[in-house]
């Protein structure tokens, strides 16, 4: 696993830049990660989603799918597309410091 520096911190990432070590993440990093993918400011609403993702991962050991974030987390899908345009599943998990969602096998 490659190591990279984000916002002055060394973190482990996969070849697409998704963080691979749950405990290396913090809120400052999230802000930097968001900037990397063109989200300049994380609003209250963004944070609520990110916190759900982190909590859910802790419980299940898997990055939640878009459908799970909407049905279990209660965030309408349409809203998620507004907050994290075009590729919400990937963008949310990238910012939340979780492995790339694999839902796709």
């Amino acid at each position, binding site marked *: 696993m490659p190591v990279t520096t984000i916002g002055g911190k060394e973190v482990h990432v996969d070849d697409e830049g998704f963080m691979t070590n749950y405990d290396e993440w913090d809120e400052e990093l999230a802000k930097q990660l968001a900037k990397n993918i063109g989200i300049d400011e994380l609003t209250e609403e963004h944070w609520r989603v990110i916190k759900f993702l982190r909590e859910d991962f802790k419980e*299940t050991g*898997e990055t939640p*799918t*878009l*459908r*799970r974030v909407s*049905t*279990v987390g209660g965030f309408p*899908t*349409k809203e*998620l*597309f507004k907050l994290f*345009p*075009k*590729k919400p599943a*990937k963008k949310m998990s990238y910012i939340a410091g979780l492995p790339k969602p*694999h*839902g*796709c*096998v």
Partner: protein
Amino acid sequence: MKRLVVLGAGTAGTMVVNKLRPRLDPNEWEIVIVDQEPTHFYQPGFLFLPFGEYGPQDVKKPKKRFIPAGVEFIEGTIDSVDADANTVLLGDGTQLTYDYLVIATGTHPRPEETPGMDGPEFGKTIHTFYTFEGALALREALKGFDGGKLVVHMVDMPFKCPVAPLEFTFLADAYFTELGMRDQVEITYVTPMSGAFTKPVASAHLGNMFDERKIHLESDFYTERIDTDKNALVSYDEREVPYDLVVTVPLNMGADFVAKSGLGDELNHIPVDKGTFVHKDHDNLFVLGDAANIPTSKAGSVAHFAVDVFVPNFLRHIEGLPMLEQFDGHSNCFIESGHGKGLLIDFNYDTQPLPGKYPLPGIGPFTLLGETEMNHWGKLLFRWMYWNLLLPGKELPLPALMSMAGKIPEDE
């Protein structure tokens, strides 16, 4: 007397009872299997029905024919499972108690989950080949199709046999080419994924095959609804894909009793240990096949490899011994590509599909990630193997765990 109850007599459930009956002492073990449907469908054959390559009789046989002597088959609906009390309630009120339970009730298409899909246009301009009836209706629709926009669509991951819509697309391309009307048909592939397939090497390869065949790819398309007034698929980010005929893979969900019993995730798939299939809170409950939430493809081949790992584990587990085998997520899928050719992919939890030869390194006879006639014959031969070897629980000469032998790693 101990009792093993198996829920679902599809691919996985049938294999399990055939493998376990001879290995469990009939004086000590009773085996019961429950299914609501008397007919066993060979689901991979549904792909060939719309093109008239298989007929209805090729893909169905009575379930009972595959249930061995010494196993009781109960035809009935499963209402719920009480995993704390070790009981199963059937729709007619019958209660079954068990010592061990195997859930193998699969995953099934739910057109009603997508607004606009399950309305008056279903079976007219909106079709699916994911059910027997659907595949036959689509056969008629293709016969009557005189050109226009054909859209192949999938609602969301995961769905069983993730390569099936790709195969349908290639076969449709070949079908219209052979009819001499390919230039009158515009084919679009609409997927929630970022490419033709998830895993990078295969996705790039399949993407090239799309370009060669002039198949348009609409990726990252997360469907909100079907607008049947406009004849268009509509995504959450407000893109629209117009169609004259749409062939869809509806959302796939596990059985309703799973939700009712509090066992499933948001799609009624049951989370279990991905190496042993045992439920984390109930060590007498196992989930095999499509019903399980494990990070590999939902496919008959996976169910087969999984059962091969499960059986020796189960025989040790009931003796109080540790389960020694660990499933690696092994999946092996033929991909029909049209004109009598096909591809083969072989992968697991950690290794993506790579080019090479299978099962014998350098020899094959099958070619990984390459289009050959032999691969197509493999796919057709598979139907015979399914009815005659796989379901009856006979040994197939294929190892359960994936092997790197014969594969060419990405960076070489």
